[in-house]
């Protein structure tokens, strides 16, 4: 029973006072972020990354992961109570969750979301524990051509699943790759795109870019149409769902968990797609489809389980292959690199305590969220009432201090201003910064793998289709791209987001 031995190792690593404390800090910070309007997990992880430098790698990653899935919980709390989804993944929760709250059933809705998320968290933690090690073992046999193809698949899939124009998203990938090339080229020592600026020799930091396009840009956008704070009209009385509620939530939670675990692995909007997909699936399967939109408990249970399961399994490609599936995962990879760990399949074998510690901490974090968040609902609601004009200066201060602390450099602070402006202009053109962020991390890796592949193959570009695994990966990429641009599928995909 390798699995049990591994999980035991993970418990040993996660169950230290230090790691438990930072897990708690992470999930609380995450919930706070999920509750507060106009602040997302990506920007928060970027802001808190410098604060994690002093921590051991396991502890740092446990805290950052806690922020990530804590935000999912927080987002659904405000979605239900004030019809304000803190995160994109809780948009569908707001539909029926808020209706339930208006009918005086806010408590059961919150409890359903929490129970569904917790169940999904447990199952998806197991899914990671079972599937990640064999995947990593298989990936150990990969060489440069396979990696190059895998990164192409990752980027194409992220584009196919994203909302909006695929053409523009591919363009943003290229922009991100070019940004990633800024700095000293590791193979030749050539200084590319540095324009004589010394600070650019190490490249454009992805943390600064993330703070800019996700933190500062968000504020610029919100200040244009000033956010109105929600008014709380619902009271939370009893949290306990009725027997009938329990009966109706079981199947959606199971289905949502399965759907979410599967979709979460996909690059791009895995968890987001999972929550939308689960909602339309429940609506289709329900005996009372007319109740959807009027406060159907299935409409809370399914999507909430799905997005939490998806948020967890999104760690699989990151932990086993070192390939990020979302901008948040790109930041986690960045955190590992800054901690001196080379992300990739060797993490499982070379750093088992780190790997299993993170996995077990996710389960612990989910438990903490259920135990803490339901009693703390009142506090979270009050926090979401903080007026935005007091909130955004604070976010700016944390971004500025966080950027400075990366390497005690004023230049990094100016960089977040530049990318804040860039993000603002990109938003005006409806260009999504997420593919750019992924490519920023993947670009330099792709270049290295391309060069190595070409050297192995003595300059033969057909190496990528001559090696069977690489060929299969490329064929899947092509299939994904074709499916995504086919008008029929596209319509379906857009419908899934509209519903």
């Amino acid at each position, binding site marked *: 029973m390798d699995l049990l031995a591994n999980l035991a190792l993970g418990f040993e690593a996660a169950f230290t006072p230090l790691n438990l404390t930072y897990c708690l800090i992470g999930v609380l910070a995450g919930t706070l972020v999920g509750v507060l309007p106009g602040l997302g997990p990506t920007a928060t992880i970027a802001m808190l990354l410098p604060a994690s430098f002093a921590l051991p790698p396991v502890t740092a990653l446990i805290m950052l992961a806690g922020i990530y899935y804590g935000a999912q919980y927080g987002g659904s709390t405000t979605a239900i109570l004030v019809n304000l989804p803190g995160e994109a993944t809780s948009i569908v929760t707001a539909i029926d969750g808020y209706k339930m709250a208006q009918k005086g059933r806010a408590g059961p809705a919150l409890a359903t979301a929490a129970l569904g998320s917790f169940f999904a968290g447990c199952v998806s933690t197991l899914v990671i524990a079972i599937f990640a090690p064999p995947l990593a073992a298989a990936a150990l046999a990969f060489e440069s051509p396979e990696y190059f193809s895998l990164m192409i698949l990752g980027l194409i899939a992220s584009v196919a699943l994203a909302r909006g124009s695929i*053409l523009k998203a591919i363009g943003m990938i290229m922009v991100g790759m070019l940004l990633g090339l800024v700095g000293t080229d590791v193979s030749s020592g050539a200084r590319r795109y540095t324009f004589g600026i010394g600070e650019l020799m190490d490249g454009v930091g992805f943390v600064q870019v993330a703070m800019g396009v996700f933190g500062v840009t968000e504020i*610029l956008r919100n200040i244009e149409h000033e956010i109105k704070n929600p008014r709380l009209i619902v009271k939370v009385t009893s949290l306990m769902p009725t027997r009938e509620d329990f009966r109706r939530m079981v199947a959606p939670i199971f289905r949502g968990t399965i759907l979410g675990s599967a979709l979460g692995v996909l690059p791009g909007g895995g968890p987001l797609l999972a929550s939308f997909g689960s909602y339309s699936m429940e609506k289709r399967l329900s005996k009372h489809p007319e109740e959807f939109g009027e406060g159907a408990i299935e409409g809370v249970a399914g999507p909430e389980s799905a997005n939490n399961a998806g948020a967890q399994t999104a760690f699989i490609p990151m932990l086993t292959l070192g390939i990020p599936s979302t901008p948040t995962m790109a930041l986690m990879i960045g955190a590992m690199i800054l901690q001196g760990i080379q992300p990739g399949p060797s993490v499982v074998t070379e750093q088992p305590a780190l790997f299993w510690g993170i996995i077990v901490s996710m389960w612990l974090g989910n438990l903490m969220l259920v135990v803490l968040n339901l009693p703390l609902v009142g506090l979270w609601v009050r926090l979401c009432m903080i007026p*935005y004009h007091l909130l955004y200066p604070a976010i700016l201060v944390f971004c500025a201090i966080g950027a400075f602390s990366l390497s005690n450099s004023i230049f990094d602070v100016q960089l977040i201003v530049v990318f804040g402006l860039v993000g603002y202009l990109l938003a005006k053109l409806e260009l999504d910064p997420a593919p750019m962020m992924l490519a920023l991390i993947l670009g330099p890796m792709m270049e290295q793998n391309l060069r190595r592949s070409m050297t192995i193959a003595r300059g033969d570009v057909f190496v990528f289709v001559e090696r069977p695994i690489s060929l299969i990966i490329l064929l899947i990429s092509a299939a994904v791209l074709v499916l995504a641009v086919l008008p029929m599928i596209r319509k379906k995909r857009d419908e899934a987001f509209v519903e």
Partner: protein
Amino acid sequence: MRAIGDPKDFWSGVFFIAFGAAAIFFAWQHPLGTPMRMGPGAFPVLIGGLLILIGIATLVRAFFRSGEPIERITFVRPGLILLSVIVFALLLAPLGVIGATVALVLIGSAASQKFRLPSALALGLGLGLGSAAVFGWALGLPIPILGTWLGG
């Protein structure tokens, strides 16, 4: 006259083409190498070229589709926000984190319609002292608490 159907696509295309062209232009000074030993110029030129192609496709598409006009770009409020962070960066060394934070919050808050000087000042001082305590003292980040002008 509305020849351009989708202005967002049009300007996205222009942006892609310009970015790709600039990428190739500045990569040209680096050797391309051979396929077997790719030089530092090869990958940027390749990606820059692909970006130009995508830019052209986006640009052409703009004439065959209809889309909404680009949302108006405003200058004053976003400008104040960006300025506040620039000022923070400039004041951090001379004034220290407390002074720089107060300046950031005052300038940044002025972008809001709900700006009130007393509350912004209080927020700035609170955040400044809080950051100095948490980041400087508790977390031990090497951030200047008092700047060189204040003898810190």
